[in-house]
């Protein structure tokens, strides 16, 4: 950037920074108020609570059956990650390595579930899943969540595979590797970092995806976000601190994985950069 030291430029820069700081402060204050409340004995009309306690965590755990909810959440997330990898990575390989008639149409098919918000396609999807009997079960939750995650894996993996020189695979073949050895000795080790990154991103996103799970989950197949939604929706039935304790548990679950994911990926990848950008 070219250093511009005129007064207007400095004022403008200060204004932009002020906005950034304002935004970040409010964000942290919002999260902070949830955390504070979850440890509060009583918090009414004051800056800080009257006293501190951890008992809300115990009561939230019992009231909202968080043990079961967390088990379901991890089962669902694990299955979604596994299947989106199994379906998405081979498809990404085909799209990265081949030009064929209908490729643009296929790309569109993989793009649409990411562009169309879940609630729009979720209602017809839920209808179909209810009629086929999948809804209300873990299988239904997994199937619904795979709809945006499979394309997400494809879109993250295609540029990753494209930047691997296809001549490397050609070299392996010329030097005598057949398809299975090519895969085992060359492709898998080269693709592994990309697969790991893509699946971690899927993991983080899946924990937080609300709408699809909300539309198809039954009482025994609720994930943590959905349980949190119902708790907030029914506010007044339980103590607000109890809901906040649950929110903190949810935040910790999500952010642990986010922190792990960020060791391997760039934050911008979480929003799934559009394809033409990845081509740079």
């Amino acid at each position, binding site marked *: 950037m070219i250093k511009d030291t005129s007064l207007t430029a400095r004022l403008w820069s200060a204004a932009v920074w002020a906005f950034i700081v304002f935004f970040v402060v409010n964000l942290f204050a919002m999260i902070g108020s949830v955390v504070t409340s979850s440890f509060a004995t009583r918090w009414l009309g004051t800056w800080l609570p009257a006293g501190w306690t951890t008992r809300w965590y115990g009561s939230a755990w019992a009231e909202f059956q968080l043990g079961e909810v967390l088990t379901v959440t991890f089962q669902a997330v694990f299955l979604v990650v596994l299947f989106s990898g199994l379906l998405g990575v081979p498809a990404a390989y085909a799209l990265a390595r081949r030009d064929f008639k209908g490729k643009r149409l296929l790309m569109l098919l993989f793009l649409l579930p990411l562009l169309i918000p879940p609630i729009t396609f979720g209602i017809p999807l839920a209808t179909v899943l209810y009629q086929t009997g999948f809804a209300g079960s873990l299988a239904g939750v997994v199937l619904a969540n795979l709809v945006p995650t499979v394309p997400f894996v494809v879109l993250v993996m295609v540029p990753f595979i494209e930047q691997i*020189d296809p*001549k*490397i695979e*050609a*070299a*392996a*073949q*010329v*030097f*005598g*590797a*057949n398809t299975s*050895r090519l895969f085992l*000795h*060359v492709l898998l*080790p*080269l693709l592994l970092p990309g697969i790991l990154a893509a699946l971690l991103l899927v993991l983080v996103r899946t924990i937080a995806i609300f709408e699809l799970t909300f539309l198809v989950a039954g009482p025994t197949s609720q994930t943590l976000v959905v349980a949190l939604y119902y708790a907030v929706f029914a506010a007044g039935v339980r103590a607000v601190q109890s809901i906040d304790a649950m929110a903190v548990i949810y935040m910790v679950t999500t952010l642990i994985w986010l922190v792990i994911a960020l060791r391997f990926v760039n934050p911008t990848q979480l929003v799934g950069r559009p394809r033409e950008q990845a081509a740079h």
Partner: protein
Amino acid sequence: MSIHAANFHELRLERLGRQFGTHNALDDVSLTIRKGEFIALLGPSGCGKSTTLNCIAGLLVSTSGGIWLDDKRIDRLRPEERGFGMVFQNYALFPHMSVRKNIAFGLQMRRVPSAEIARRVEEAVALVRLNGQEDKLPGQLSGGQQQRVAIARAIVIEPPLVLMDEPLSNLDAKLRLEMRAEMRRIHNSLGATTIYVTHDQEEALSLADRIVVLRDGTIRQVGTPHELFAEPDHLDVADFMGFRNRVEGTLVSTEGGIAEIAVGEARLHGRLREQIRPGARAVVAIRPDDLIAVPAGADTLAASVISSEFRGRDHVGFAQGPGGRDLVFAAPRALAVGETVHLQAEPDRAVVFAGADA
């Protein structure tokens, strides 16, 4: 994997063709390569030289014709069944494997016992002078070193045929010269049959036993570097061999293979490379070094100097000749812009082809 061990006498391409859609990337290419030869495929980009190489390697499937290793047809075999060694343009080293593992890869695929792998890898490393670098990853090596790994990987399997796809094009000028000598040395010490693709005529001339000049998917000429350099059969080949000047005129007469061409008042002489009758249009192709400034005379080509460059030992001049054509010639000294020079070609070294409307 029977081919690689087998001894062979020759590799034949028989009327090989490759179509991309309606485009003929390769058309009716026939060529015989004898064991131990170093063959260069030379031509501009898009001439079909890489297509030929990829067809031989099995990375591209030919659409017509056949490839034979002695009496065994190989053009339907998959690349891993052909047993050739290949050096790729960007080396295509496996980025996740050490130098040692890269070189050992082909041997592992052939299930060579590990003790022998170790021995042969060590030999190959010594041959390409990479001792001490065995445990590095390709990303930690310089361009020249990566190049050496790629060569070692290709020759360690002792293939009947080594294929090289513009292996020097990614190196800087100095390193390119160094690696060129290196390749020649390695070829001399192993005698591996080599097919080498390049667009650089100097590289082809200095390395190859025979050069195949390709253009528009067909073979223009096959010959030793000397033959091609002195006696190009085709204007395209001459183009590639450094005949930068093309002067058009009319054939006046032929005597003992030397033709006299009239260009306006001027007369140029050169060896006739194509059958043309007196009176027909002809093109004289002359290398800059063979177009020399002479004292004014009735039969010289008068040209007006545009610029001249110092080349170290001598000068090279650029001038506009009759009819506005650009001429490049050997200048005796630095010339002034606008000065008139009189040029004449060395009759023995200029070549004459049929003109455009002959």
